[in-house]
């Protein structure tokens, strides 16, 4: 079983990148410390997190139930049916966990999850989540801006993209024993997309530690892109000069682009993206129009100014 070893950051990390240890919020993952924890809808799944609500980046829509967010998952590493991950992901050990950082950055190496989280203040953001399969959710994630993590690795001027890799562990991820995709799962962002304040590194859901089926212990959320861009259970971050070869794009390039921005005007070759069905909505009232950039156009459309979004879908 290829479990990543736990390595003390002092062994591999230069002292100045201890992620501002003195500033760290005591116990980012400590249990039961905060009065801000929202107990409603959250069964005793994960430990409660210490976080602040960030209304500035939250949508004004009622979030989906915890039950819906944790039983309706596309996480092919645990099976291709929506309820496979909730049944199969339980046994994945998410601690200890480490992330290796590589490529066009001054600070490289393998970092324990605790060190990744140190110095990051967690916030809750209620984001829309739009799957490429034309269904959607509203999810109260807990995390921190990816940009504040990436900056600490000091990307070089050649770092034009960031590539992420999911854990590869066929013994614990039964879906990886079938060649449905080219394992391990790889996703990527352009560096400006990665540094955008909306791009979130997620460790929690409904105020508690993220359940395994939702990508524990560390996943990406890019709310203006189709869900498959938001890679789960990240073990590797690599800064690259060239566009990463991402899993779905490699599998079916004419159906899944590298950018994968939510766009009601560009259909999937086999189905329309003009509308979506909101999971959990009542019968006959679930379908709603899909918004350009999933409703985040005012914040992110400028990233793609001058680009032909039909070509770079």
């Amino acid at each position: 079983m290829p479990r990543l070893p736990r390595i003390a950051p002092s062994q591999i990390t230069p002292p100045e990148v201890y992620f501002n240890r003195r500033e760290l919020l005591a116990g980012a993952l400590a249990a039961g410390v905060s009065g801000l924890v929202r107990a409603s809808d959250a069964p005793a799944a994960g430990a409660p997190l210490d976080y602040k609500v960030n209304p500035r980046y939250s949508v004004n829509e009622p979030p989906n139930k915890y039950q819906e967010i944790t039983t309706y998952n596309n996480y092919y590493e645990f099976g291709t049916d929506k309820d496979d991950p909730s049944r199969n992901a339980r046994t994945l050990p998410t601690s200890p966990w480490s992330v290796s950082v590589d490529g066009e950055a001054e600070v490289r190496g393998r970092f324990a999850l605790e060190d990744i989280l140190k110095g990051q203040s967690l916030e809750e953001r209620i984001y829309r989540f739009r799957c490429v399969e034309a269904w959607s959710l509203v999810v109260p994630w807990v995390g921190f801006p990816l940009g504040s993590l990436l900056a600490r690795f000091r990307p070089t001027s050649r770092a034009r993209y960031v590539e992420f890799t999911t854990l590869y562990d066929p013994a614990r991820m039964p879906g990886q024993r079938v060649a449905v995709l080219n394992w391990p799962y790889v996703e990527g962002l352009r560096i400006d997309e990665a540094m955008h304040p909306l791009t979130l590194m997620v460790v929690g859901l409904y105020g508690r530690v993220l359940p395994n089926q939702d990508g524990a212990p560390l996943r990406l959320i890019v709310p203006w892109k189709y869900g498959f861009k938001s890679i789960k259970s990240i073990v590797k971050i690599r800064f690259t000069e060239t566009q990463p070869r991402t899993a779905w794009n490699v599998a079916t390039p004419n159906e899944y682009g590298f950018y994968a921005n939510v766009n009601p005007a560009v259909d999937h070759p086999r189905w329309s993206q003009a509308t979506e069905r909101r999971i959990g909505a009542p019968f006959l009232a679930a379908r709603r129009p899909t918004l350009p950039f999933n409703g985040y156009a005012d914040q992110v459309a400028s990233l793609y100014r001058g680009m032909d979004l039909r070509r770079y879908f």
Partner: protein
Amino acid sequence: MNVTQRYRYLYKPLLFAAALAPLLWLIGGTLGWFGASLGADPVKKLEHQCGKTALQLLLLTLSITPLRNLLGMPQLLRLRRMLGLFAFFYVVLHFTVYLVLDLELNFATLGADILKRPYITIGFTGLLLLVPLAVTSTNAMQRRLGRRWQTLHRLVYVVAVLGVWHFYWQVKRDVREPLLYAGILAVLLLYRLLRAPQRGTAPLTSRSGSATAPGRT
């Protein structure tokens, strides 16, 4: 009980109940009977389950001829019409769920889907082709159409191919399940191709099953 009675009072009612079971299971899941649930997206579950049940019944319908021959049970023919009609029933349910619960009666989207989405085009074609088969399934229609009945009902092969193809085409990536259906269909069609040269050379023993229903479809 003789064979006719056994089929009429035992096997056919049992098959009828069995063919309704998937629908009961879906209704129970939708209404939450005994704590049952169709999961976070009941609409997709209803849609996919009706479609798969239709395909399964269609393949079962096409298995009757090989089973009659291989098992030497010509009387199995008596079950075929019910299987075929239930396949049609689930196809209609599948389409109804798609139009009413999935598209929420948006007829503009329905039109666009049928014209622009190949997998929906072929699925819808399959549904339309099943209509004349269902309409002409009665004994009276069989008598009226005579030899042409059999020719018309060969359409079921086209429908089965379209149905499995429709399934294969809408799957995002994991095609194992539709490939299983395709494999079974291939065996059923191959069986008929390989037996075709015998046609006309020897009388079909299966004819004895029913005076009105043609033996091979």
